[in-house]
């Protein structure tokens, strides 16, 4: 059985390892260089240089667009694994009926199936885990510049969430292949359902993994002010009038505040009791969000794997 796995997956494994090796080398070179640039910039920025220093740090990695794009592109690794490893796992046997050949050799269908499924899931764990470790390590420097790790390009490519996405995509592919029994329909279904599920979760569920917090700050200061820790996920920012109602649409400035400069008007509104309110998830909730989303997708992966196994064992060849 192990020989069969090796014989069927050796090409895919070699291709994956070659790409990963090239990727790892590129990340290692640029990652070390970026960390070095960042550290020396921080040391040369003395306390009090203020905005100029921030601007300098902000423009630090301007030449790194290509590699940053490649890192963000690891977003598609789960669906690639789902289509090429998951969807083909069973369908490429059932389409040309080689499953009938294998199921009448001296290895039970159950053992064949469980070995293949276990291999696919473990290979996914290793492939996605390895990629995530590389990306997470490399992103240490950009993260400390940008702070907010809740955005898609960061949240979906770093730490444990990308691994959970990959396990879900591969289990989805295996189930689609087991049910549809043909390679191309299984691949198409895997891509479609995976993208739909990710969008629904990212847009509708992810903001609700924890109750959002509200922070009310003076009208004439920065939104959130110093109390809003860097790295928080800002959901919305609103102006609240003196009676505590959210102001929708353009703010009608009372006549008493119309005169004078913009700053004068802000101070005037502040005196009247206008506040600005930010709705956010604090940076400290990051791991709660990572775990919640990961458990959700791993749970879905478990259900889909069970479906694939039951369908394959119960149906006629």
């Amino acid at each position: 059985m192990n020989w069969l796995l090796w014989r069927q997956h050796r090409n895919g494994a070699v291709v994956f390892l070659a790409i990963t090796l090239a990727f790892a080398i590129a990340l290692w070179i640029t990652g070390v260089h970026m960390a070095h640039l960042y550290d020396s910039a921080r040391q040369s920025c003395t306390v009090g240089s203020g905005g100029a220093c921030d601007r300098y740090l902000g423009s630090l990695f301007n030449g790194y667009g290509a590699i940053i794009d490649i890192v963000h592109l690891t977003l598609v690794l789960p669906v690639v694994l789902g289509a090429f490893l998951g969807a083909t796992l069973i369908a490429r046997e059932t389409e040309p009926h080689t499953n009938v050949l294998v199921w009448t050799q001296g290895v039970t269908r159950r053992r064949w199936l469980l070995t293949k499924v276990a291999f696919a899931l473990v290979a996914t764990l290793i492939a996605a885990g390895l990629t995530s470790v590389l990306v997470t390590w490399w992103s240490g420097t950009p993260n400390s510049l940008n702070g907010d790790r809740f955005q898609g390009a960061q949240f979906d490519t770093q730490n444990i969430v990308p691994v959970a996405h990959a396990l879900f995509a591969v289990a989805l592919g295996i189930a689609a292949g087991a049910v549809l029994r043909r390679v191309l329909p299984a691949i198409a279904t895997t891509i479609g359902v995976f993208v739909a599920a990710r969008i629904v979760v990212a847009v509708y569920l992810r903001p609700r993994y924890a109750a959002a917090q509200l922070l009310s700050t003076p009208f004439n200061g920065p939104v959130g002010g110093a109390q809003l820790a860097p790295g928080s996920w800002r959901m919305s920012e609103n102006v609240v009038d003196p009676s505590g109602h959210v102001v929708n649409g353009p703010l009608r400035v009372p006549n008493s505040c119309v005169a004078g400069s913009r700053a004068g008007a802000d101070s005037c509104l502040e005196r009247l009791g206008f506040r600005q309110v930010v709705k956010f998830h604090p940076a400290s909730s990051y791991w709660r969000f990572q775990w919640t989303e990961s458990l959700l997708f791993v749970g879905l992966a478990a259900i889909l794997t069970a479906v694939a196994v039951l369908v394959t064992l119960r149906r006629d060849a």
Partner: protein
Amino acid sequence: MTAATIETTGLGKRYGSTWALQDVTLTVPPGRISALVGANGAGKTTLLRMLAGVATPSAGTITVAGQHPADDVGFLRRISYVAQDMPLYGRWKVADQLKLGTELNEDFDDAGARERLRALSIPLDRKVAALSGGMRAQVALALALGKRPDVLLLDEPLAALDPLARRDFLSTVATAVVDRPLTVLLSSHLLPDLERICDHLIVLAGGRLVLADDIDHVLATHRVLTAAARDTTALERVHDVITIQRTPRQVTGVVRVGAAPLEPDWDVTEVSLEEIVLAYLGVAQSAGPPATAPASLTLLREER
């Protein structure tokens, strides 16, 4: 009296509301090479798939080599099954295909399989997809025989082969049976080809079993009877009349002759296996007009 190698009782398979095979109670004694014949859709493939354990019966029981078909090694090691489309890994070399047999079976006869292919000049380093249909069939057969099965199930192995490849395929099967105890069940439209190596016959029609017997016994008991036009009620009471055709002047019937003596004015002639099979298949088409031998002959020939 040896135990049957293949035994089914009340076997049936239903797809949706249609029975592809119904109420098949069948016995194939050990060591037979049995021809499974029937028109398209008669249920040959369904029967073989259930015997091989790749499809589950909707009704009835199966015993193959003393085992019930199941997902366990004890059953799997006793049977070999070559499906109709002879699935092989097309992009693999022949040698890898044999390695599959070695890797997935405890007791695979790798040397024997290689020797068999070498004797047929089939190159082991050629990709399976690049082989001719005949060579492909031989690779599938070598893999099946390499398992050293007790029962070999072959579904339409000759369908895609030219006459020469058919002869080679059948001679490989015939040689294998001489080498070691083996029961073979192979399905085909091509009865004349099978007659050369088969000693047992199973006829399916419309999803039902119409005949299962040793060929010698079938030939010994079936006769064509001809006589001047008459009432055949008396005949039908004591003998199995398979088909009967009447013209204003005479009556002709294929009859399974029972123990009772025949009336002396029947003209009794021997009958070929093909005619017997056609008679049984003709009966099964009961929905249509009374079948005549020439009509059903044409029908079967068209199928080929």
